[in-house]
C-alpha cells in the first residue's frame, strides 16, 4: 500500500518533470529564434528605416511602402475572410441539416486548409490578376490571402460555435427566442473568443505569406494608394532582399520589424479577446 503510493508519487514527479522539460525546450527555441532575429536586425532599425522610401531596390533608405502594403493586404484579406468565414461557420454549425452537403463542405474546408499556399497563389494569379483583370494589385493579393485563410477561419469559428453548450441554446429557445435571436444574442457572444483566435491565426498566416503575394500583388516598391495599385509586403521584401543578394542586413532588419508587428497584433488581439469574453464566461 505504502509502496504503491510512493511509486505513484515518483511517477507523478517524473511525468511532471518531462512536461516541464518539453515546455522549457519549446519556449527556449522560440526565444532563441526571436532573439536571433532581433539582435541581428534591430541595430539597423531606426525611425528613418521605418518611415523612409527605399532607394536602390532597398539597398538604402527605409521600408515604409512595405509596411503600408502589409497592413493594406491584411486588411483586405481579413475584411473579406472574417464576415464570410464567420457567416459560413454559423450556417454550418447552427443551420445546416446534417447530411451529404454539410459533410462535403467540411471535407472541402479541411482539404483547402491543407493546400500549399503557392497553389492559392497560382489560382489567384489566374483568376484575379488575369481573368478578372485586376492586375498585380492590393485587391488581387488581398482576395487571394482571404481565400487562403478562409478555411482556417471557418473551421475555428465552427469549432468555437459547436463548443457553446446546448443548454444555452435550449434556454434561449424555451423563452420564445427565434433561432436567429439565439445565435446572435447568446451563441455568437459565447463563441467570440474562439472566433477571434481563429481570425488571428489567419492574420498571422496572411502577414507571413510570401509566394502567393508575390504572384498576385506584385513587388512594386511604390506606396499603394488605390486597391488596384500593386504592392510589396514586408515578407516579400525580406524574401527579395535575401534571395537577390541585395542586402542581408536589411533583410534582417525587415525581419525584426515583421516579427514585432506580429507580436503587436497578437497582443492587441489577446487584449480584445479578454475585453470581449462574456463576463465570467468560459473562454
Amino acid at each position, binding site marked *: 500500500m505504502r509502496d504503491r503510493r510512493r511509486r505513484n508519487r515518483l511517477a507523478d514527479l517524473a511525468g511532471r518533470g518531462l512536461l516541464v522539460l518539453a515546455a522549457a525546450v519549446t519556449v527556449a527555441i522560440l526565444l532563441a529564434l526571436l532573439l536571433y532575429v532581433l539582435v541581428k536586425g534591430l541595430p539597423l532599425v531606426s525611425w528613418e528605416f521605418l518611415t523612409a522610401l527605399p532607394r536602390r531596390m532597398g539597398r538604402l533608405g527605409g521600408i515604409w511602402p512595405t509596411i503600408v502594403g502589409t497592413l493594406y493586404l491584411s486588411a483586405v484579406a481579413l475584411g473579406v475572410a472574417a464576415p464570410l468565414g464567420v457567416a459560413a461557420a454559423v450556417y454550418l454549425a447552427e443551420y445546416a441539416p*446534417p447530411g451529404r452537403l454539410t459533410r462535403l463542405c467540411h471535407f472541402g474546408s479541411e482539404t483547402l486548409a491543407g493546400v500549399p499556399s503557392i497553389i492559392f497563389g497560382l489560382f489567384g494569379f489566374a483568376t484575379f490578376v488575369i481573368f478578372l483583370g485586376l492586375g498585380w494589385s492590393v485587391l488581387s493579393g488581398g482576395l487571394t490571402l482571404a481565400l487562403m485563410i478562409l478555411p482556417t477561419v471557418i473551421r475555428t469559428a465552427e469549432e468555437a460555435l459547436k463548443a457553446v453548450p446546448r*443548454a*444555452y441554446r435550449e*434556454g434561449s429557445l424555451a423563452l*420564445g*427566442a427565434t433561432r436567429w435571436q439565439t445565435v446572435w444574442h447568446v451563441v455568437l*457572444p459565447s463563441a467570440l473568443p474562439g472566433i477571434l483566435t481563429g481570425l488571428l491565426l489567419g492574420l498571422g498566416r496572411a502577414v507571413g505569406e510570401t509566394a502567393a503575394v508575390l504572384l498576385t500583388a506584385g513587388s512594386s516598391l511604390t506606396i499603394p494608394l488605390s486597391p488596384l495599385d500593386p504592392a510589396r509586403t514586408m515578407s516579400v521584401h525580406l524574401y527579395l532582399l535575401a534571395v537577390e543578394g541585395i542586402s542581408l542586413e536589411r533583410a534582417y532588419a525587415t525581419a525584426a520589424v515583421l516579427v514585432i508587428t506580429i507580436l503587436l497584433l497578437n497582443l492587441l488581439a489577446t487584449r480584445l479577446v479578454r475585453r470581449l469574453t462574456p*463576463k465570467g464566461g468560459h473562454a
Partner: protein
Amino acid sequence: MDHVHAPPVPAPTFTVRNLTIAYSGNPAIKNVSLDLYPRSVTAFIGPSGCGKSTFLRALNRMNDLIPGVTTQGRILLEGEDIYAPGVDVVNLRKRVGMVFQRPNPFPMSIFDNVAYGPRIHGVTDRDRLSAIVERSLTAAALWDEVKDRLHKSALDLSGGQQQRLCIARLLAVDSEVLLMDEPASALDPISTGKIEDLIDELKNRYTILIVTHNMQQAGRVSDRTAFFLSGELIEYGLTAEVFESPRDRRTEDYITGRFG
C-alpha cells in the same frame, strides 16, 4: 393536506391523446393520454428514465431540437394541435415556458439574464426592464441575495441561486404554462421551501407542470399527480387520492418507497 374539496373541473389547458415519443425508434413515452388543467399544479413522478422529461419537453416542442426524435399522437393546447403543420413554434414556446433539470443561466450578467426574454420580445425601455427584473427576481426569492450585484456574471452564483435565476428569467416572460423539470433538485431545504411557496402563489395565474423525485414535495405542492413507469402512464388523478388510495399496486409501491 386538504385536497379533499376538489375544485370544479375547468376546460383543460393541454389535452394529450395517444402520445408516443421515440428516440431513434426506442419509445420513451408509450401511448399516453391525459388532460392537464389550468390554474393548478400537476406533478409528474416516477423512477429515473421513465420519460418524465421527455413528456414535459413534448409540451413546448423542445424535443424537436434532438435529432431522431419521433412524436406520434396529439397534443392540444386550448384546443389547438401544437404539432399541426404551420404552428408558430416560437410563439408556442413563449406561451409555454420551461425551467430545465440542470440550471442553465446565460454567460451574462444577472440583470441581462432576466432581461433577456423581455428584450427579445421587444421591451427596450430601461426603467420598464429594471422593473421587470426586480419583480421577477423578487418573485423567484432571489432579489435580496443579488440586488447589489445585478451586473455581475450569473455564472458566479451557486447552483441553487442559478436555478432560481432561471425561474426568474422565465417569470419575466409572460407565459401561460410553466414546465418545471425538477426545479428544486439542486436546492437546499430553505430555497426549496421558497420555490414551493412561489409555486403555490403562481398557480393562481399559471398552469404549472412539475417533475419531482421528492414525494413529499409532490404531495405538498400539487393538485394532481401523474405516475409514469417505463414510458407508460400508470396512474393520474387528484394528488390526495393518488397518495392516499392509489388504484394501482405499482403506484403504491413507488410512493411508499418499496420500489425495486
